[in-house]
């Protein structure tokens, strides 16, 4: 795996072939963009937070300040090889529409999100009766940007409903991969490669 990157980003960086065009929606400070650019990809970003955008531009990356919920509409159909949405789906107002837009703009989409059905989360709710505050969900309920929590099972069901094909999926427990078996219980984090 690509060294130093956040584990889900490392999976994405490893999977995207050199030379591909990529739009990283919610690119943060440009960690993935920098890795993809170094690999010879045509990598662009979209990011809501102006400080992050300024940080990216200062790193020489091409990033547009924009909102995943509204600004994908400006991109032509199938204009990008890979539309990436890492750790951002659960923060959007309408994840279903954002997913549709990703697959309109990109030939393929790569989506990663924290799994709300991980056993620690279940335990926290079951025994503590409290919204979980974990390593991947570190912020209390009132100030978390995550407004649409979802589980791996939720996501799969939604894909099926919308006729979206799963080409590949990766599951993560901490920094390590974990199998697809019982992933909805064991994985903290999922990465899906999708097409339509």
């Amino acid at each position: 795996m690509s060294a130093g990157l956040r584990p889900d980003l490392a999976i994405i960086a490893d999977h995207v072939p050199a030379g591909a065009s990529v739009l990283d929606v919610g690119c943060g400070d440009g960690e993935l963009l920098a890795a993809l650019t170094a690999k010879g990809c045509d990598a662009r970003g979209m990011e809501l937070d102006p400080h992050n955008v300024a940080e990216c531009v200062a790193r020489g990356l091409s990033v547009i300040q924009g909102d995943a919920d509204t600004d994908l509409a400006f991109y032509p159909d199938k204009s990008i090889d890979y539309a990436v949405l890492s750790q951002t789906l659960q923060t959007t107002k309408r994840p279903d529409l954002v997913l549709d837009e990703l697959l309109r703009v990109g030939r393929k989409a790569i989506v990663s999100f924290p799994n709300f059905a991980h056993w620690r989360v279940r335990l926290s709710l079951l025994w503590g009766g409290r919204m979980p505050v974990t390593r991947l969900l570190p912020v209390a309920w009132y100030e978390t940007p995550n407004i649409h929590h979802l589980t791996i099972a939720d996501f799969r069901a939604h894909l099926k409903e919308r006729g979206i094909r799963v080409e590949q999926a990766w599951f993560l427990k901490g920094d390590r991969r974990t199998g697809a078996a019982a992933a909805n219980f064991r994985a903290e984090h999922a990465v899906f490669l999708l097409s339509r």
Partner: protein
Amino acid sequence: MASAPFLTTSRVLTLAQPLALDGGQQLDGVRIAYETYGTLNAERTNAILICHALTGDQHVASPHPITGKPGWWVRMVGPGKPIDTDRYHVICANVLGSCMGSTGPASEAPDGKPWGMRFPVITIRDMVRGQVALLDALGIARVHAVVGGSMGGMQALSFAANFPDRCAAALVIAATARHSAQNIAFHEVGRQAIMADPQWRDGDYYGTKGGKGPEKGLAVARMAAHITYISEAGLTEKFGRNLQDREAKTFGFDADFQVESYLRYQGLSFTDRFDANSYLYITRAMDYFDLAEEHGGRLADAFAKSSARFCLVSFDTDWLYPTAESRLIAHALNAAGCPVSFMELSAPFGHDSFLLDVPALDRVVAGFLG
């Protein structure tokens, strides 16, 4: 100012070839006054062309010869600054139509008299043609970047669109790809103020007795424009309803309020350094600017041949060229497949933020130029 263009201390290039204009005319013997900073490298690849705004000039980082004030972008341009003259060769030229040494309405026409209103109406693209002619003369095939704020940003866009092989990057700050109805409206107020001044004499005021051009009209034009350069909150914070050197209102029409006194000063001091006819011509060029219209109506098509990197910056308090205008350009560039960055920075100063202390802008400029 009443006779001839203002004297310039800058180098002046006289174009050997006539300059063909969008209006269909040709201008012979065009003069372009310019300043340079830093050293051009042996490969001639480290030039940065800075384009100035409506009332700016070539003195981007050197004292203004009339006012004695430091250059208009010294906080951005110089050794170790975001546009680092230790690394880059910076070129800034007075635009065609202006009055700081480049050919404009105050210059001599072929008949030996000032052009006045006989000067052809010019466009932003004509100004850019002048810039490119200067680069030709300087032997610079391709600049590392073309940079500009406000009207300078319009030139940078026009440059990248019309001369796609001549720049590797374009940095466009607080600008727009077309003048809106509101932009045109404010400019028309300014132009009418100048033309309503009896001293304007249909533009034929150079060399008149007492040397007075339409100073009152030009001052009013500058006052109206100045309001559009600052934010409402900025004005309130700076002046509020404070009175000027007095304890109470005078029940007269003196400048009771500080904001009135400030605007009057801005207007009057402007007439010392700017030609009224140049103000008419340059505002007209800005009003005519519509980059999409020049390229068949679709903005993305303007950049179809461009290989440059773009960076667009807007300010949240700029209501003259608001963020939506920059975002529109960013989306057009994306549709055209150009590498583009865009961000809205937070700054309290309105449109003028690009000239003032906004540290985030410094970081973006330095980072984008590399």
